[in-house]
């Protein structure tokens, strides 16, 4: 009892002091964190990490798939487009693939905490302006990531506080128009507030690049929406879809943002004037192996500095050809399609796609496989058939018989025996005049990279993957060991955005747009200018930006997915050694459906993804979910 009295007395005496003014020791106050440049840097690193950048760690399950167990089979976004197939998987797009909802609102909350605190910070006005611009850039990026997936979404413009009433936290969806306009507004705020420097944090220029891309997306949805009419509550409430009348103002916004970058004097195309197509191919490849060598072209780089979980990425182990796997058991997963390869122009026929012609008859729509009745054209090497095609093909794909890491990459689907009988994709060998010939071009699985189903390690399209691959060092056989950097925005995309916005809307400077288109082609070794047409812009965009995770969104925003992918088989090119030509070594090629694959059909409802948790959040669901 006496002790108790003492205790009470003690409390009473002390409590008069500052007990109510104690600072919590488990929390950092906004003014402490953001008042210190080091604190801002730390907080910013976390925000940038959460940005929806579709880089080397972006897969079906979402962003930053480079944690402790990133084993997703290497199924890249390119494999649900017409750019590539996986060496084994035949999957297409699931409802929740590439979704980004909860992480989006987490990022939005984190950035709102920052932007709400800015007015109360004791920092200079210039510093406040820079922070305002940076947080606007992050908000724009986040809502762009949401709008292109879900249409109109709840706009949470400042931090929500929970005060015991859950209902008050529920914010209904804004219309798709309001959502895009909010993205535009935040881009404009960022452009007006940010400095003109360069670097890896947001600048005025990265904000322009974001606006160029986002506005083009919105404009396309408005213009091409009628290609895929939808119905349901979300449509009648305008939560998805834009009126066609909105197209031109978004195209105009994209044009203006691109023009700012084009007039900035800070950016240009890397190596714009190559001496030959061979040089152009190597320049193009080098730019992606290390974007830092192409500082003039790179507007915004996401760096991968250290190997390790949550730091490095897995592009090299998944996608380099089997022959250079260096002990890694699962290489060779990215197989560029013949459909993409066909698209690259020939220098002697500018402005036209150049499907690979394999027979004297010349039918490039025959995918029925080897037919002894046809007159196949014989070539001296497994890649002569591609000679004269756009340099970017050679910089993007590993073609049969070309060299990679000083190793000739062998991609062969079989042979035709001297008696005319073909052996295709069946493990076999034949001895003619003392020499032995193998189906896959070599006797053992470590010596070739094509068509054998062994381990799923060999290409089944006839092409392996080169763009982004690091040739400078051997494969490290483990997770998250690659540290090549990713260009999120580069100048060529801005030029292509500009050309597309001009040609689709008829607004802006058509001559400048044609020049932008042809500058990119010139950098790829072309010498003849082609006219500015919608078809030319789209073909150029597909070959220049291949595998940069743009194609998926191009098919979405232009509402071409459901027509491009309607029972669609992807195609392969089978190189065969023609032993009928012995002693000369000659190759023939067969156009075919990708072996062991099914057709792919896009469901139009997937133009908008399902919103998760509508039972709890009360939001209106997108149609047909």
């Amino acid at each position, binding site marked *: 009892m006496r002790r108790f009295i003492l205790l009470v007395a003690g409390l009473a005496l002390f409590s008069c002091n500052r007990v109510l003014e104690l600072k919590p020791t488990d929390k950092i106050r906004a003014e402490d964190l953001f008042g210190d440049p080091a604190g801002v840097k730390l907080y910013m690193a976390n925000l940038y990490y959460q940005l929806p950048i579709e880089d080397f760690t972006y897969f079906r399950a979402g962003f930053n798939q480079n944690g402790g167990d990133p084993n997703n089979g290497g199924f890249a976004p390119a494999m649900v487009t017409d750019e590539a197939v996986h060496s084994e998987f035949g999957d297409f797009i699931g409802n929740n693939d590439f979704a980004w909802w909860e992480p989006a609102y987490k990022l939005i909350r984190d950035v709102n905490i920052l932007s709400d605190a800015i007015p109360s910070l004791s920092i200079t006005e210039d510093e406040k302006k820079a922070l305002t611009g940076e947080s606007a850039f992050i908000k724009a990026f986040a809502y762009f990531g949401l709008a292109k997936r879900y249409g109109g979404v709840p706009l949470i413009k400042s931090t929500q506080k929970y005060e015991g009433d859950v209902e008050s936290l529920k914010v209904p969806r804004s219309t798709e128009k309001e959502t895009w306009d909010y993205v535009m507004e935040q881009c404009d705020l960022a452009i007006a507030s940010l400095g003109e420097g360069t670097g890896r944090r947001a600048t005025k220029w990265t904000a322009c690049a974001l606006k160029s891309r986002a506005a083009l997306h919105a404009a396309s949805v408005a213009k091409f929406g009628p290609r895929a009419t939808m*119905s349901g509550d979300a449509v009648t409430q305008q939560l998805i879809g834009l009126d066609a009348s909105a197209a031109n103002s978004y195209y105009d916004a994209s044009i203006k943002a691109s023009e700012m970058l084009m007039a900035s004097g800070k950016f240009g195309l890397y190596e714009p004037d190559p001496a030959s197509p061979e040089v152009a191919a190597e320049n193009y490849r080098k730019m992606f192996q290390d974007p830092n060598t192409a500082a003039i072209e790179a507007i915004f780089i996401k760096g991968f500095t250290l190997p390790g979980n949550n730091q490095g990425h897995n592009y090299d182990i998944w996608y380099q050809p089997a022959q250079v796997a260096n002990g890694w058991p699962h290489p060779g997963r990215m197989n560029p399609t013949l459909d993409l390869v066909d698209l690259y122009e020939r220098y002697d026929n500018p402005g036209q796609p150049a499907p690979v012609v394999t027979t004297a008859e010349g039918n490039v729509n025959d995918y029925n496989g080897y037919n002894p009745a046809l007159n196949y054209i014989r070539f001296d090497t497994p890649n002569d058939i591609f000679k004269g095609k756009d340099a970017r093909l050679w910089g993007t794909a590993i073609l049969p018989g070309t060299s990679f890491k000083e190793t000739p990459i062998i991609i062969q689907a079989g042979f035709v025996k001297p008696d005319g009988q073909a052996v295709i994709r069946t493990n076999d060998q034949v001895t003619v005049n003392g020499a032995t010939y193998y189906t896959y071009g070599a006797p053992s699985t470590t010596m070739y990279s094509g068509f054998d189903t062994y381990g799923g390690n060999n290409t089944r399209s006839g092409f392996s993957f080169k763009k982004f691959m690091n040739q400078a060092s051997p494969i490290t056989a483990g997770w998250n060991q690659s540290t090549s950097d990713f260009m999120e925005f580069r100048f060529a995309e801005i030029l292509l955005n500009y050309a597309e916005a001009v040609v689709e809307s008829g607004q802006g400077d058509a001559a400048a747009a044609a020049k932008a288109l042809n500058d990119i082609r010139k950098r790829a070794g072309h010498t003849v200018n082609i006219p500015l047409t919608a078809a030319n812009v789209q073909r150029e965009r597909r070959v220049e930006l291949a595998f940069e995770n743009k194609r998926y969104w191009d098919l979405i925003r232009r509402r071409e997915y459901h027509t491009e992918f309607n029972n669609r088989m992807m195609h392969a090119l089978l190189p065969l050694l023609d032993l009928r030509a012995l002693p000369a070594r000659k190759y023939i090629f067969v156009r075919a459906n990708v072996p062991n694959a099914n057709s792919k*059909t896009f469901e139009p409802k997937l133009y908008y993804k399902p919103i998760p948790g509508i039972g709890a959040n009360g939001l209106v*669901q997108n149609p047909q979910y």
Partner: protein
Amino acid sequence: MKKMIICMAALVFMACEKDNYDGPNAALSGSFIDAETKALVEQDIIRGTTIEIAEHGYDPVEKQILIVKNDGTYANSLLFANTYTVQPVRGNFIDVAPQDVQISGNTTLDFTVVPYIRIKEASIVKNGTTVVATFKLQQNVTTHVKKIGLYAHQDSRVGEPMRFVAAESEINAVVDPNHVYTLSIDLPSNSSQLKPGKSYYFRVGAVIDNGDAKFNYAPVVQLDI
């Protein structure tokens, strides 16, 4: 200790009563019937007509979606008995209004509809190395007929969304009900998909240019090729 046992026992006994709801033991089934010909209205399973049902008593409620079989019938035998708002949506017929239906036991609900397009006098025959389809179209709305097609697949649920081979023709016009349309598939040039000596299913269809309207079909035909 004894108190705790009593407490747990109480929980165990109580829990049974609270959870004793009926399982999903009700069924809804029926057909889509052409108002004029009284025939079933052919459908697609993939990307076909759907029926949205919204269970009463919950707000917000996630709509359940029933798909319709190719022959124009549908059934779902795992529903909770309750009142539902039922409406066929995104169909191949003129819109049907929503209706409230008490579903319990085996509830049957047929929809009498006017298909956007009736495919008349359809014939699909093998003629040498070609499969030839002929048919007439009768449209029941004023918008354009967008496209017609002949589709082939190894499964009887063949249609525009599910086919190995298609012969299609863009129409984009109002059609003359007396015009005979002809579509054909050349077999040798599709030999990797339609293999000689096997049997395949064929169906002709047409789609109206009206929002997300679905294809109308004539009944499926099986041919040995």
